[in-house]
């Protein structure tokens, strides 16, 4: 019995690592390959989680949906809708310098949060959506967890392979060229805003996928599950610490950051309840600090993108220049 429960925790951790892996690879497509700073990851995550919940949960009288559709349809729908909402966001912002995308994606995530909290007919507002089916949910707990891990692990592996193929393809090379030298890429006749939009949408679909896997794991989703900044930040740190532009590095970053984050939770759980609030926000403070430390001491990440060291050095030496569009 003890052996099995000791086994349960690592499995639980591993499932989350796979879910965060999807989100982080999605961000890597946007930031690592295309240099787009998406500060509203939680927004796309929420769109994915709620879409699949609405599509696959069973019927309820006062709420849209409960279409009782199969899980794969739900997941696919989540990815498609995340991509669709990414389109106008990207379309409006990608003409400008990077800060505007950051601002608008923050706004997007806030609007998603407002909708999730206010529109009862769509999202069940504060009570959220429950009775979302869980694949292999009928098995005993341990087997169900392992089966779900196999499922998320498989999906992550496929996503990783597909993105890896993309990134070494001509498409990937063009993306990097745009990121590193926009002027030269434009002079070669590349349609930069369109390419960036492609990367942005592709990344968003992977974030929607992460959200969907999360909803099925928990058999539902509530607004509290999408604390906008914390989720977005963890993923940021995973990508930058691991090595933006390198999928393997990013997955390493996911593992390290998620294990540290979970371990810190185990530790703060031991603290007396009087300081539980302080402990909770102390952990959040540490996330912010961790990002600063990575930016300061290891901006290229643990497993840097090949050639990226050169890129960082060049950026350091050349005089500061702003992209003016």
């Amino acid at each position, binding site marked *: 019995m003890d052996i099995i429960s000791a086994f349960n925790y690592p499995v639980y951790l591993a499932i989350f690592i796979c879910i965060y892996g999807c989100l982080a690879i999605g961000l890597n497509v946007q930031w690592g390959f295309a240099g787009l700073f998406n500060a509203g990851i939680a927004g796309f995550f929420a769109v994915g989680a709620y879409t699949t919940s609405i599509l696959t949960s069973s019927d309820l009288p006062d709420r849209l949906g409960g279409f009782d559709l199969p899980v794969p349809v739900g997941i696919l729908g989540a990815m498609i809708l995340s991509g669709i909402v990414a389109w106008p966001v990207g379309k409006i912002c990608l003409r400008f310098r990077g800060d505007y995308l950051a601002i608008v994606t923050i706004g997007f995530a806030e609007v998603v949060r407002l909708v999730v909290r206010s529109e009862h007919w769509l999202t069940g507002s504060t009570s959220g959506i429950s009775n979302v089916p869980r694949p292999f949910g009928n098995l005993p707990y341990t087997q169900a967890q392992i089966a779900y891990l196999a499922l998320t692990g498989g999906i992550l592996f496929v996503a990783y392979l597909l993105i890896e193929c993309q990134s070494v393809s001509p498409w990937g090379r063009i993306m990097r060229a745009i990121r590193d030298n926009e002027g030269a890429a434009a002079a070669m006749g590349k349609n930069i805003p369109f390419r960036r939009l492609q990367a942005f949408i592709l990344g968003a679909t992977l974030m929607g996928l992460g959200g969907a896997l999360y909803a099925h794991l928990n058999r539902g989703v509530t607004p509290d599950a999408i604390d906008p900044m914390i989720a977005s930040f963890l993923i940021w740190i995973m990508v930058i610490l691991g090595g933006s532009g390198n999928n393997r590095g990013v997955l390493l970053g996911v593992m390290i950051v998620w294990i540290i984050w979970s371990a810190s939770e185990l530790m703060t759980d031991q603290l007396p309840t009087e300081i539980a609030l302080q402990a909770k926000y102390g952990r959040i403070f540490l996330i912010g600090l961790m990002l600063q430390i990575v930016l300061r001491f290891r901006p290229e990440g643990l497993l840097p993108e090949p050639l990226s060291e050169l890129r960082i*050095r*060049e950026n350091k*030496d050349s005089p500061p220049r702003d992209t003016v569009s």
Partner: protein
Amino acid sequence: MTAILTIKDIRGGYTEADILNGISMEVSRGEIVAIVGPNGAGKSTVMKAVFGLLKIRGGSIDFLGTDITGWSPNHIVQAGICYVPQVENIFTEMTVQENLEMGAFLRRGDLSAAYDRIYGLFPDLVSKRQVVSGSLSGGQRQMLAMGRALMLDPKVLLLDEPTAGLSPKYMEQIFQISRNIRDTGVAILLVEQHAKQALAFSDRGYILVAGTNRHHGTGQDLLTDHSVAEMFLGG
């Protein structure tokens, strides 16, 4: 005449690659020295090296007996060297008068004497005092840029292509003003595309090729030297 600015065997560049491969030159009080040469020879880079805007990996820059190699620009300005870059050389959002005031940022107290001196050198600017400098013509901009650099009474003035893009009339005017400035005791080191005209009006000249100085002499000597003329001045 003793040199006030001595550049000795300078090497360096913007990144890892060296653009300057051992440049040496001297500038003395009250003379105009022109740097000419083909594109990419490192003419403007020499000025940036003097002004602390470049990674210097070898050699030294001596100003009035002090080694100023690697100093930051505001210390170099304080020491008495002012620089007029080729582009972005005025504050386009500020008035003419404010531009001059920024040129004298390091000097506190009453600036009226300095203003009078600059407006005396550049009478064209007098009527434009309160005009936002972005609306000035090309020639007036160049005058303002030089005026800004002269506000601190520098001992050496570095001019990077002061006549680029100007009409012949303005070019002549800038050259004439440069002579007037020289006659007040300021040494001028300038980079020029218009090699022949520059050598004709300068006291001395250096010809740069591939990051080293190939020839130097008085302006007239360089102009009449056949090998120089054939190779660098277009026959």
